[in-house]
């Protein structure tokens, strides 16, 4: 076989890669548009479009439909895209970093840290929030959750460094220990909580895009965008890590820097997401896994497609969450886990069967 043929097959591959990104992007856009058009209140698509264009060129439309499209569906859709994309992307980065297709962004302690901080806010700090004007008070929860996520991630990172190197095993073990600690902390807070505080906190841990506002979008946007800008640069390093840390180093990858950037990026993006939408489980775990099964593990393609797929998944789940039980709403985490878990089991079974049948 000549080099020309090998080269040609790589060009074919590249076309295939573009097609994959194109399809993923198309799905994401479709989901977003559906999210603007579908809801418990029937609003014809033309009317939705008119309202959106009115919003964009300043000729505001008044009335209930406009409030629904601009103040409920639009913020939820935007937040869903940002949270879905950054959480799924974080999962892909974590799975690459740990060379484990079942790793989850929570493994760096972000979710447990955010959870503990949120519990602290609900149970101790909400009183503070009442003393302060409305806007700052409602920001207290997202800010606490975000800070908590970062603090725990930073602690985990420091704990797992030995002789200037970050040990994956230590990171996992420390993560387990800190997870147990934050659970205990949450347990204590739950103990002293009132029933009302308890219920609010429980709903928060199930995740929701309800209450999406431009303030919350502004909170998560910079972190999500920053992470999505940085992540592609980790692609080659994550691929190289598949050969082992020593080999990756020989190939020119600064492994310590890769780990540092990955952990910080994940902590910031997931911390901000958890802060505004609660803990939406499963997106970070299952999206990269499914995408990898379809298009392969090469991160240059995996990362962007996973981000787009995550946006699609979360926005679609949100459509279901706010429509099937209308006029009430099912927590988002229930949908993502309720759909995600069986689907993942099916995938694993299918893979296992396929291997046995070889």
């Amino acid at each position, binding site marked *: 076989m000549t*080099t020309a043929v090998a080269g040609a097959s790589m060009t074919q591959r590249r076309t295939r890669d573009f097609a994959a990104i194109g399809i993923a992007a198309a799905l994401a856009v479709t989901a977003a548009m559906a999210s603007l058009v579908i809801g418990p209140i029937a609003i014809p698509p033309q009317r939705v479009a008119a309202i959106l264009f009115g919003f964009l060129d300043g000729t505001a439309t008044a009335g209930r439909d406009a409030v629904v499209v601009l103040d409920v569906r639009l913020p939820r859709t935007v937040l869903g895209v940002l949270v879905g994309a950054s959480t799924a992307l974080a999962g892909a980065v974590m799975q690459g970093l740990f060379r484990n297709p079942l790793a989850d962004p929570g493994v760096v302690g972000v979710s447990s840290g955010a959870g503990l901080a949120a519990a602290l806010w609900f149970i101790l700090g909400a009183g503070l929030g009442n003393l302060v004007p409305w806007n700052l008070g409602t920001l207290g929860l997202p800010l606490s959750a975000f800070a908590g996520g970062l603090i725990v991630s930073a602690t985990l990172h420091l704990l797992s460094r030995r002789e200037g190197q970050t040990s994956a095993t230590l990171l996992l073990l420390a993560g387990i220990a800190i997870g147990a600690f934050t659970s205990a902390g949450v347990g204590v807070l739950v103990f002293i909580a009132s029933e009302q505080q308890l219920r609010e906190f429980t709903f928060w841990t199930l995740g929701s895009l309800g209450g999406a506002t431009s303030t919350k979008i502004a909170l998560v946007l910079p972190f999500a965008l920053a992470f999505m800008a940085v992540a592609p640069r980790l692609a080659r390093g994550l691929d190289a890590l598949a050969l082992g840390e020593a080999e990756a180093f020989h190939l020119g990858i600064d492994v310590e820097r890769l780990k540092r950037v990955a952990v910080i990026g994940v902590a910031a993006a997931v911390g901000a997401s958890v802060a505004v939408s609660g803990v939406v489980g499963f997106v970070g775990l299952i999206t990269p896994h499914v995408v990898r099964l379809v298009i392969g*593990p090469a991160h240059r393609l995996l990362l962007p497609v996973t981000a787009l797929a995550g946006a699609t998944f979360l926005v679609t789940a949100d459509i279901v969450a706010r429509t099937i039980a209308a006029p009430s709403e099912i927590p988002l985490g229930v949908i993502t886990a309720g759909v995600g878990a069986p689907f993942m089991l099916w995938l694993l079974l299918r893979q296992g069967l396929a291997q046995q049948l070889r």
Partner: protein
Amino acid sequence: MLEARGISVQLSGREVLTDADLTIAPGRIVVLIGPNGAGKSTLLRAAAGALKPVRGTVTIDGKNISGWSAAMLAARRAVLAQSVTLTMAYTAGEIVRLGVPVSMRNHEVDTIVGEALAAVEMAHAAERLISALSGGEQQRVHAARVLAQIAAHRGPTQYLLLDEPTTHLDPAQQRTVLQLARRVAASGAGVLAVLHDVNVAAAIADEIVVLSNGRVVERGSPAALTPELLGRVYGVPFHIAESAMMPNLA
């Protein structure tokens, strides 16, 4: 010229390599031999810049590499160690592509990867999953990766470091790897190989360095290897056999 001077390395508080010297000139093949635990891999890793010696320096063309970044090192030297089994479904082409830096243009990358695979006679497998290949084929793909890395950084002399690349390989596979080493040296790169088979070492080396208990005990052309020396180093009696069978490495 890649030079290691006075290298001493401590691992877990114990000194495993003391005062070792090494010179790899462009176009030359230097082979390290010695018993297990003698410090061969340690010396290779120090030369590769993968570990920091507690004493001594490693220089490439006179410049001390101790402050070099991973990328700077990769531009001057490639390492082929025993291959790791991959759990993820990468294709052979994707593995070879890892040798090439990100900044390169697509068509250049394609050419380099294609040529590297062709050089190890694996061009047909570019789109196949590496996990679906046999052990020997996988080793060839990793060899292609290293070739790609060298080809991608034209200009200053490259150095190829091979750490026991023939372990678990059958004679045909060993031949492939060793011919690769020869070819790379012939194209102007310097080659350092750690080998356990003394005969193979003698067959390909321009210079042999013998290590024992963390020290260099002998250095010279293969002719300098005597049964007495080897007997001392390995602790078993050696003799020169009249009829020896080994793959023809020409």
